């Protein structure tokens, strides 16, 4: 129980990362690959957030007086995660645009069938 208590968030984060990696390794449909990438991305974001977690912590915002700085969670990972989410969005948009063009050219998204170039 203690193990779960200490590591449950890490298990979740790496679980997502591994699910994404598994999709990336075994699937061949481009859209599924993109979904896999997104899942990996989500897992990584969760992992970064976990790095700054504090038990019973509060948000690092001094919106009113009397908040205890001791109980605030580490704000750095939150700032990092903002950046990494935006990067994820950018990559996703690029990937989808490429998928649209690829489908227009080949009529399929199955990477096994798209083999004009050597892989």
């Amino acid at each position, binding site marked *: 129980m203690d193990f779960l208590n*200490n*590591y*449950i*968030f*890490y298990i979740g984060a*790496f679980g997502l990362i*591994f699910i994404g*990696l*598994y999709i990336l*390794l*075994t699937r061949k449909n481009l859209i599924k690959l993109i979904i896999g990438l997104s899942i990996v991305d989500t897992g990584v974001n969760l992992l970064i957030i*976990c*790095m*700054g*977690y*504090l*038990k019973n*912590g509060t*948000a*690092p*915002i*001094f*919106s009113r007086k009397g908040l205890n*700085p001791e109980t*605030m*969670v*580490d*704000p*750095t990972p*939150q*700032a990092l995660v*903002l*950046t990494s989410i*935006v*990067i994820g*969005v*950018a*990559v996703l*948009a*690029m990937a*989808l*645009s*490429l998928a*649209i*063009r690829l489908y*227009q050219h080949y009529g399929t998204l199955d990477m096994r069938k798209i083999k004009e170039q050597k892989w």
Partner: protein
Amino acid sequence: MRKIFSLIILIILALGVYICISEIPFGKPGTAVGNYYIEKGIEETGAVNIVTSIVLNYRGFDTLGEVTILFLASLGLGAILATVQNKTRGVITPPSLILTTACRFLFPFILMFGAYIFLHGHLTPGGGFQGGAIIASGFLLRYLGCPQKRIRQSSFVAIESLGGIAFIIIGLLGFTAGGFFLFNFLPKGVANTLLSAGIIPLIYIAIGLKVGAEMAGIIDTLIEES
């Protein structure tokens, strides 16, 4: 075969993760850097939202890169989807009255809510990126509800560029005033009021408009394609 192979790889990876992570206790007390931000953040930047003070002051350069990445995505998307030959669009079934009316009614409120979020970035959770995303969602609703009404792409592009340039100019002004790029050269003001935290609200206004225009532009390009 492929599946078994990938499973083996993943198991090896998981072992590595376990060895590495077993030494990082979960929910440990904050790091030195994080504690410094919490203690000195308000004093040094004037923003009560410490995350914002990190995003725009301590690590403002990252945010400039982040803004660039979004700009890059919209540029790349436009470049890849620009030279399409068959512009014939399929027949659009007109959306139902409920959707059309509701979207016309709600559109101004969504825009204002986005503006509220990015103006209060240094006081409450939120900021330029979130506010921009909300504004873009307003445009998405508009495209769903009134598909025949299009906004010209060129205005999006102009706002994008101007937002980026405004960010850099604010940074350079800090350079001339304080000797550091992105230096917070404006007076910090009284904490917890709207006009505080120096350059943070200014940058967030630029980012909010820019992100809103960018996302809306991306949505517009993708809708044009499909």
